[in-house]
């Protein structure tokens, strides 16, 4: 396990053209890592995330992505992701290929990926138009009953990035609260990067809390408030005012570009990003 600065870790492990999953189901979204990807101007990424949220709206609007695999692309509790919409509706700033699933389909795909199975199965998608627009959604016959069942190819990201509450010095990771499909996305990846609120002597984790053991973790960076403006259970709630404000910022290409330049590209790291937001407030 490599313990480094976020800058080092993103530079060393994320490369142009890779498939990258920044997971966290509306909770523990790795915003700081996403911003560092943006700062380092990574390009041609295939972004994977069940709920793209504001972080992928930013990466897509900044031109980092060539493709997106997702299952629900809204601003949660607020409305649209305007940069995602602009990419899909108008190819701005560049065309974006989309691979669209349902949550259940994507969960099955991550689970298969984590187990290194070729595909996941689920009862679903029957009668919907999703399989018509996503040729990855197919079906097989059950070898025992001959009943049809839907399949999705396993998702195995080149890199998965998570944000977690804590790591210990050995590199074991604790995640608590709403855990989404983080564990599956982590174990499905070739490389796993985790940012954490803090590094502690002992996790003292409840027996069944999600712990990712150190040898599956490629690199860790300590980034306090690294999920801001999303939630980190036990640390901070979502900054809902930011989510509402984003709706306005992201509607307009120029306003978006100015915001990204001022707050993300012109700040050296996450602490400076937070300072620049505080100054603007």
């Amino acid at each position: 396990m490599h313990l480094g600065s976020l800058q080092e870790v993103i530079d060393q492990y994320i490369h142009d053209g890779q498939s990258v999953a920044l997971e966290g189901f509306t909770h523990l979204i790795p915003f700081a890592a996403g911003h560092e990807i943006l700062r380092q101007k990574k390009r041609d990424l295939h972004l994977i995330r069940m709920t793209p949220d504001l972080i992928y709206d930013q990466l897509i609007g900044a031109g980092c992505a060539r493709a997106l695999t997702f299952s629900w692309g809204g601003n949660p509790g607020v409305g649209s992701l305007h940069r995602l919409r602009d990419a899909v509706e108008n190819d701005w700033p560049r065309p974006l290929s989309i691979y669209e699933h349902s949550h259940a389909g994507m969960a099955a795909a991550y689970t298969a990926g984590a187990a290194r199975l070729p595909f996941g199965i689920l009862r679903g998608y029957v009668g919907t138009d999703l399989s018509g627009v996503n040729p990855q959604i197919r079906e097989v016959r059950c070898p025992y009953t001959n009943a049809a069942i839907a399949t999705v190819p396993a998702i195995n990201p080149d890199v998965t990035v998570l944000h977690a509450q804590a790591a210990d010095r050995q590199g074991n990771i604790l995640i608590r609260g709403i855990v989404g499909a983080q564990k599956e996305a982590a174990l499905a990846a070739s490389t796993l990067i985790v940012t954490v609120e803090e590094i502690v002597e002992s996790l003292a984790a409840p027996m069944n809390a999600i712990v990712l053991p150190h040898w599956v973790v490629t690199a860790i960076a300590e980034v306090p408030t690294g999920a801001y403006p999303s939630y980190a259970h036990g640390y901070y709630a979502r900054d809902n005012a930011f989510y509402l404000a984003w709706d306005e910022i992201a509607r307009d290409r120029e306003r978006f570009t100015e915001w990204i330049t001022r707050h993300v590209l012109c700040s050296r790291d996450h602490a400076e990003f937070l300072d620049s937001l505080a100054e603007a407030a």
Partner: protein
Amino acid sequence: MSVQSSSVTTYTPDEMMTIAAARLIRPGCVCFVGIGVPSAAANLARLTHAADMVLIYESGGIGTHPSVLPLSIGDGELAETAIAVVSLPEIFSCWLQAGRIDVGFLGAAQIDRFGNLNTTVIGGYRKPKTRLPGAGGAPEIAHHAKQIFVVLKQSPRSFVAKLDFCTSAGFLNGHGERARRAIPGAGPQVVITDLGVLKPATGSQELTLVARYEDVSVDRIRAATGWPLAVADTIDLVAAPTTDELRILRNLHKRTEIAHAGDARRSRKTSRPSLEQARSTA
């Protein structure tokens, strides 16, 4: 617009819709809900006549008892107040897919006469006029829940003759097609709008107007529907909200507003509790 009810209280069509939906939830019901009107209606039911209902959110909270409405599906309130918090793959495969949900509560941008739902695009998929958020949990909720309640505002834009995209299957082309395709749940058993209530007809499964609200005429409901609306022989009148229902719903919204205004202030500042403090409070 607000309406004067017999109990001398004014209320909005949105409040009437939420309250009409809440009344349909039976005590003990295991209900899978999303954010928005479904969440408000389900919590209103829990705070009124269905205290023992089991609320499940797709982010993994089973038996949640939020004191305020969640801002988003990732809201910590849903985890803190739950009987159990499980992973997302588990909630979809072992709870929803396994048939353990009585009622799935869905909204949509478009619905057709057979209760099929669109939350994906307006216009063509490759060159959409409006790209909507997409499927989320809806297709499998619509597939597996024993029955579906749909809540949405009624207008010619939302009640359309032909969906631009079918995200979640209702009765497909009706006349038993859903059952023939071996979809396990019974599908949309009721559609609650801001004007009235629709249910599928026996046989054809076409959505049929069965009830209206006070001061809403059947003609107005027909005009808000993008196909020639089937109307039941007898149309029930849905009772106006009681003062208790309105008070509890409004208090819920008020508490929600106050709590979430606090969130933004707390979280913008980076003063954070230690891990030990976090453990003892979370």
